[in-house]
């Protein structure tokens, strides 16, 4: 692996200067002309209600108001995996904050003022605010039309219930295995809802030209998927829609798929010629995009005295919210992987996507794995205790290895799980008891392993174009999004390695669906792998064009030609050193007759996993190959508990993740440092709270506290493991989401080690811990 020039070397981000100078433009920064209009939505105050009437008369009188639109005017439905969501609520609203109408006005102030004057008459319906209530036989049906919603073939809705999708996985015989087990352990764990809290709120500007061309500027992870869903919902041709995504101010899944952007796109169709801007406030950002779904997990594990886990029953009831067009696939992903990275012969998984009258659930960094990993990795520590085994040793013994059967039957990819376990354990001096610093301050250590696969359609593809410029510099166009993870730089490094051009001489910019090739979405931690393969192919094609031109002009054997230091060289001819800048546009001059060979060098590349399939037995989940590969890792944590206050101080986190090949190690470390803090936040500080009418109680950063620079662990140790992914570019696989997955059980396990109490509900705030220590658990 040490043989690369650019891949595997920490490289400053190619978008660094844009970001430290204010040059980076986000959607709300783009300038439009005086015909720019502003939209504001009218939001439902009820969690569940019939819409009886909408009267826009008062709103229309506000000076500056152009139009007021409702679901009658724009009766469009949409959805990524299941079409259950509406541009505007029509017959009923299903969560507090849902858009029922919108005002378009000449100024933001007029739009906001008028939106408050739209009179909507509702008839309230019973609100279903948690999954357990929603699953009762007599529960109010939130989607009476569930049977009619189009959906992907791997979903199994249960019409006339609130179950939008039920993923089952059955392997071996769990009941027999529980009967034979030496130890059986059972408990329930709960995880609340969370907000992505990207610092940039969602924003969209859309314009339908008088010629019928729709251009949409969005803060999005998914330009192509947005274009597709706009085309489907609005009945336009793909060629007539152009989605431009400038820099995006954080995504974490919250800007995947389509949420509020379709409102802007639909509104623009009613005011031809005018660009229309819709910009979410922070409160709307919390209440009406996606939220991470809450889950209640029932776990039953059986094991032999030697530590072999023989059986797992894992039942996940997801509070998926009012619309599950994206969130149902989170449920699906967890439902085929909720064993964690372990070889278990007998498995029984049920993952139920349950409609509730809370905001729509959806993708959030970790995509279901963070949620189930809290219960699973907490439970494994308790199993180790029952067995009298070291928790790290229990994980080592059961760690899945290459070729083992995955829960759905296909073989596991190569992985450095055992190396990750060993290195993370060593980094926190696992097994060494640290002295308590004070009588009321107890030190504990926790450990957890994790895995995650990209969750996506089996045929999610990537395309890339590459061209050389007159001075030998390079432009690459791709449609993955730079969310901050360092994607643009990684793509530059991959091309740099093939073309022997430094990454700093390669420009990669954010997408425009008119000009850049296809990319399904920047989600699932898969673009380094997938788009990286497309860029690798494009660069390889460009390289072949260059070498072929030299071969034809100079006569050197193709096999002797290679690129180095921005020159073409030959192993047969030490005298050959053709600078790329002289030949990549103008061609290579044939010294014999003065003609030129070659021409402007342009490469294209594409990638699609051709082995994946979601076809499987609906009753057992066996038979398909829904996941392309798993990325694995392990982490250890050391903390102090102040038993007088419940306050925690995280001394150290060591997290090891198997990147296959880190294209840019500093970016992988960045994912670890950022993911660790985001994961800690879910266990130490954050959760979304609702009142008994389904209203969100903490839709601000005043009340939904995300960590500041003073809330970081004393030390974070990033550990990069590299066991190559055979079909990855230079062996790479993704790591972006994985780094936040193990944090919640790490903290729970360390608390148990420090003070001997087991908390089974997140978040573990100082208050909750203190009350538990004080003998009054909630």
């Amino acid at each position, binding site marked *: 692996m040490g043989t690369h020039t650019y891949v595997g070397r920490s490289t400053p981000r190619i978008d660094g200067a844009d970001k430290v100078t204010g040059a980076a433009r986000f959607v*709300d920064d783009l300038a439009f002309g005086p015909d720019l209009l502003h939209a504001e939505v009218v939001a439902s105050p009820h969690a569940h209600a019939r819409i009886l009437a909408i009267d826009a008369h008062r709103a229309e009188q506000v000076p500056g108001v152009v139009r007021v639109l409702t679901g009658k005017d724009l009766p469009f439905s949409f959805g990524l995996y299941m079409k259950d969501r509406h541009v505007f609520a029509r017959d009923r609203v299903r969560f507090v904050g849902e858009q029922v109408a919108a005002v378009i006005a000449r100024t933001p102030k007029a739009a906001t003022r008028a939106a408050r004057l739209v009179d909507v008459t509702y008839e309230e319906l019973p609100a279903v605010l948690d999954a357990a209530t929603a699953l009762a036989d007599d529960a109010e049906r939130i989607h009476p039309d569930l049977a009619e919603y189009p959906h992907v073939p791997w979903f199994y809705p249960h019409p006339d219930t609130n179950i939008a999708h039920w993923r089952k996985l059955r392997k071996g015989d769990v009941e027999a295995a529980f009967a034979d087990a030496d130890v059986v352990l059972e408990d329930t764990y709960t995880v609340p809802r969370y907000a992505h809290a990207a610092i940039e709120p969602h924003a969209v500007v859309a314009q339908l030209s008088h010629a019928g061309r729709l251009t949409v500027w969005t803060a999005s992870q998914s330009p192509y998927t947005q274009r597709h869903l706009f085309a489907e919902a609005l009945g336009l041709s793909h060629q007539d829609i152009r989605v431009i995504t400038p820099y995006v101010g*954080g995504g974490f899944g919250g800007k995947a798929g389509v949420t509020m952007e379709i409102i802007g796109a639909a509104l623009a169709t009613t005011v031809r010629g005018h660009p229309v801007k819709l910009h979410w406030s922070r409160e709307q950002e919390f209440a009406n995009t996606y939220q991470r779904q809450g889950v209640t997990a029932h776990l039953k594990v059986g094991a032999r005295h030697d530590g072999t886990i023989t059986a797992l029953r894992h039942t996940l009831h997801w509070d998926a919210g009012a619309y599950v067009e994206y969130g149902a696939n989170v449920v699906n992903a967890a439902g085929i992987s909720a064993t964690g990275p372990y070889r278990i012969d007998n498995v029984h998984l049920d993952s139920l996507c349950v409609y509730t009258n809370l905001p729509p659930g959806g993708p959030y960094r970790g995509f279901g794995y963070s949620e189930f990993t809290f219960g699973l990795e907490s439970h494994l520590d308790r199993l180790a205790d029952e067995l009298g085994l070291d928790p790290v040793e229990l994980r080592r013994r059961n760690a899945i290895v290459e070729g083992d059967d995955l829960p759905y039957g296909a073989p596991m990819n190569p992985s450095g799980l055992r190396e990750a376990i060993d290195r993370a354990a060593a980094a926190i001096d696992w097994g060494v008891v640290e002295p308590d610093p004070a009588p009321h301050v107890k030190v504990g250590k926790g450990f957890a392993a994790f895995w995650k696969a990209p969750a996506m359609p089996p045929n999610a593809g990537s395309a890339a174009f590459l061209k050389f410029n007159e001075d030998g510099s390079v432009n690459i166009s791709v449609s993955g999004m730079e969310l901050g993870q360092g994607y643009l730089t990684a793509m530059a490094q991959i091309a740099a390695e093939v073309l022997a051009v430094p990454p700093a001489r390669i420009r990669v910019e954010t997408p425009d669906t008119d000009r850049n090739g296809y990319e399904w979405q920047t989600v699932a931690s898969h673009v380094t792998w997938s788009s990286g393969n497309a860029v690798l192919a494009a660069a390889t094609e460009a390289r072949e064009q260059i070498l072929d031109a030299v071969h034809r002009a100079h006569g050197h054997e193709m096999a002797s030609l290679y690129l180095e230091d921005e020159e073409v060289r030959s192993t047969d001819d030490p005298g050959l050193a053709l600078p790329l800048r002289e030949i990549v546009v103008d061609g290579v001059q044939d010294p014999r007759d003065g003609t030129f060979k070659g021409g402007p060098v342009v490469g294209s590349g594409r990638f699609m996993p051709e082995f994946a399939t979601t076809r499987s037995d609906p009753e057992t989940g066996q038979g398909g190959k829904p996941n392309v590969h798993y990325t694995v890792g392990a982490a250890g944590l050391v903390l102090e508990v102040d038993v007088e206050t419940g306050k925690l101080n995280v001394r150290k986190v060591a997290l090891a993740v198997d990147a296959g090949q880190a294209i840019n190690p500093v970016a992988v470390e960045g994912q670890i440092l*950022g993911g660790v803090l985001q994961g800690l936040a879910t266990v130490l500080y954050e959760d979304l709270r609702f009142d008994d009418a389904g209203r969100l109680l903490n839709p601000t950063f005043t009340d939904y506290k995300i960590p500041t*620079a003073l809330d970081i662990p004393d030390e974070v140790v990033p550990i990069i493991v590299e066991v190559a992914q055979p079909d990855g570019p230079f062996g790479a696989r993704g790591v972006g989401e994985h780094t936040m997955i193990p944090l919640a059980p790490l903290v729970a396990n360390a608390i148990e080690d420090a003070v001997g109490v087991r908390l089974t509900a997140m978040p573990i705030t100082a208050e909750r811990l203190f009350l538990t220590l004080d003998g009054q658990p909630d």
Partner: protein
Amino acid sequence: MRHDITLKVNGEVWPLDVEPTDVLLEVLRTRVGVTSPKPGCERGDCGSCTVLLDGRTVRSCLVLAVEVDGHEVVTVEGLSLDGLTALQEWLVERSAFQCGYCAPGVILSAAELLADTPHPSRHDVQEAIAGNLCRCTGYVPIIDAVLAAVQASADPIAREG
């Protein structure tokens, strides 16, 4: 009723007429065309709209435009009119930011610190940027880069030619 004000932004004088309710953040973004101060929460929680007002950091979402008549605003564009400062160079060198949305505000908070405290401790840096929320980085690379700039440069916020 509109008010005539004069505002200096990054060294340029801007005569403007504003409504009493106009917020400095919006005036900078839509009237002056300086877009590095970002809307993030519009209630003073997140710090992404931070600017220097007469050399001190303020949340421009909490300042009315009429309040700053005759005053001077510096944004991150104004820090690097003639090239990057050493502070910015080190933030690039260390790949300190990810999405970059918080970056203009963080940089101005760090610049204010370094103007007051040329040799800050690690805790000083954490304290100085604690009002600027970042969801991507875990803050560590930013803190490290600020400290590296202090180590490497006599005046990390001076404009480099």
